[in-house]
């Protein structure tokens, strides 16, 4: 039925199969919309956030998806900005995944911004961050950069949309898409610049909290060490997440969409960045534990109380930090599909844990000696919005995969017999 929209030379499942797949994600989006409407109509009392937990699931989710969506800017930076000059042998492997990375990035940032729209107490006043901008606040920096970066991602997404078979037939769209693509290096560079600052500022947001010794870090000039650590962890997790999404797509569609060399490259990039990050994170933790912590009159174990106990620290840095780093940097392990995916998954989990620790654990810990240690668990409305964002992401990615030439190597890896149609029922 939608044969005309499907790219040339590839096969897609019938609409009879695709429709229920989409309905499932639409159901999640519906849950998300109901939750959002409740929160906007009744107020944030629909959540389990309170005066102690000013930030909750949504902020953890936002920080996580922004870190995971870093694959878009980093792959773009490697491909379009430094690719030809410094790593020409890797460009083909990167180009195989760049479109998917851009779509994933777009999904991540658009859902983050939508979620923030519900999270703030007065969403209609959201534009005040821009209009009454406080240039000293890390959150201002984050807001500006993620908004502008979303527009950059939209500009990078447009040529992919315009390469749809039917849309390409319209000369205005075809030519415009091509022209945008010719200057993609400019947008990739702008995207890299913006991403550097907002990934960093998300870390800076916590590092500047000198009233919270758990999160506070010293640093370089106005930038706490968390600024740089968050950038590193984002570019370590981003390529892994891109790889995971493509791997899942391959499993669901039953096709090979990129050559294994692309996965190997993404894993290698992730692995070495993760290794660097973990080493620096350990150094930072030690210097914080011997610097900031005793100066505040506290000791390391003061910060770890169940359910946010020491296990969280070991999980974040040890289990989901050191182990995936070893897996991803060792060529012998990278060659095994199972280990590769496990390594990527553990890498991504570790970075999500890091965002959780900085958000939830920081707020759980009392600073005044007579204050309480608190715990937090989200309500179904909070989960609803997170799950809705997930549904939106899978829905948009599915649509992009079905109707757009997301994977340039797909045709080569899945040759169709000459007499075959471009779309067949399986």
């Amino acid at each position, binding site marked *: 039925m939608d044969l005309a929209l499907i790219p040339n030379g590839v096969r897609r499942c019938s609409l009879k199969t695709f429709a229920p797949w989409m309905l499932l994600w639409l159901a999640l989006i519906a849950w998300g919309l109901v939750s959002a409407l409740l929160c906007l109509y009744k107020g944030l009392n629909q959540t389990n956030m309170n005066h102690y937990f000013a930030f909750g699931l949504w902020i953890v989710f936002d920080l996580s998806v922004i870190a995971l969506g870093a694959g878009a800017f980093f792959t773009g930076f490697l491909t379009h900005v430094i690719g030809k000059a410094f790593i020409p042998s890797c460009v083909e492997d990167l180009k195989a995944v760049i479109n998917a990375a851009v779509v994933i990035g777009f999904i991540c940032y658009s859902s983050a911004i939508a979620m923030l729209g519900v999270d703030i107490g007065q969403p209609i006043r959201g534009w005040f961050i821009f209009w009454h901008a406080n240039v000293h606040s890390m959150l201002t920096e984050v807001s500006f950069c993620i908004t502008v970066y979303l527009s950059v991602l939209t500009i990078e997404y447009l040529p992919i949309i315009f390469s749809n078979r039917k849309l390409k037939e319209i000369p205005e769209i075809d030519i415009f898409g091509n022209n945008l693509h010719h200057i993609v290096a400019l947008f990739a560079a702008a995207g890299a610049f913006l991403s550097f600052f907002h990934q960093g500022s998300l870390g800076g947001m916590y590092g500047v909290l000198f009233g*919270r010794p758990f999160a506070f870090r010293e640093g370089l000039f106005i930038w706490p060490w968390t600024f740089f650590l968050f950038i590193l962890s984002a570019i370590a997790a981003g390529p892994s997440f891109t790889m995971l999404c493509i791997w899942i797509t391959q499993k669901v569609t039953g096709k090979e969409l990129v050559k294994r060399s692309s996965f190997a490259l993404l894993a290698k990039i992730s692995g070495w960045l993760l290794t660097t990050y973990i080493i620096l994170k350990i150094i930072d933790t030690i210097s914080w534990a011997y610097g900031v912590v005793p100066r505040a009159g506290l000791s390391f174990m003061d910060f770890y109380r169940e359910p946010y106990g020491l296990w969280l620290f070991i999980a974040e840095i040890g289990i989901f930090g050191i182990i995936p780093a070893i897996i991803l940097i060792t060529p012998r392990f990278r060659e095994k599909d199972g280990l590769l995916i496990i390594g990527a998954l553990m890498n991504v989990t570790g970075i999500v844990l890091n965002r959780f620790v900085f958000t939830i654990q920081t707020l759980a810990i009392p600073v005044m000696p007579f204050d309480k240690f608190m715990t937090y668990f989200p309500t179904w409305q909070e989960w609803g919005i997170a799950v809705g964002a997930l549904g939106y992401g899978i829905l948009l990615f599915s649509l992009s995969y079905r109707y757009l030439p997301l994977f340039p190597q797909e045709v080569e890896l899945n040759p169709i017999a000459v007499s075959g149609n471009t779309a067949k029922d399986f």
Partner: protein
Amino acid sequence: MKKENSAGGTKYGMVIDLDKCTGCGVCTVACASENNVSVLYDESDKTRNINWLQVYMVTNGKKFPETQIAYIPRPCMQCDNPPCVPVCPATATDRDPNTRIVSQIYTRCIGCRYCMAACPYHARSFNWFDPSFPEGMDRYLSPEVSPRMRGVVEKCTFCHHRFMRAKAKAFSEGRRELEENEYIPACVEGCPVKAITFGDLDNPGHKVSKLIKSPDVFRLLKKLGTEPKVYYSTGKSWIRRMADNSLEGEFKQPNGQKPRE
């Protein structure tokens, strides 16, 4: 009176005598009624109700007959180095250069709650609900203080509207300076044992500026460097120990002070 503050402004601060405080809570009630603080449908939920001046109960942890308890009223510390001001993305909070009071613009606040994450004293409250007042209480609301809408952060302002009222009165009398007790917040006025003293910390003529020089005086979480302008006074060292975190053996008595346990 000659002011030490060369900028010409005033450094308003408080000293709360914890040895006098009985934990009666009149200060909290006076604050809430003065400032049109919304009443939650379930005020027992202390994680969500709005309380600008929270009274904490602390104990020395010893068994009978050595048990002691004390009450620590905690308004906004009105820090001179506030952790909440630089983090607000919409410049909805600022430290006033003239009075050194940390203000909050309710109509500008977007409710991101970053300032709440920054404040170690939990001085800031968020309006998780629409404001509501019990039947008939709306007739007691003060016209000098704007009520807050849902989704914004609020906190103690040292009853800044009273400062404005006092200033207007002084202006009308041809004066620019305020006398010592012309402007006092509601909590100070309400306290039945006069445990709270308020005034210009830099003005040698004001009682507070003398009180803060006493060795009995301390501030909460001094090590963090927030420079709070709310001081506490007690002769009991176990309470002073509660004011800040300290490592084993780190807590010291002020020089020459004999601990009154």
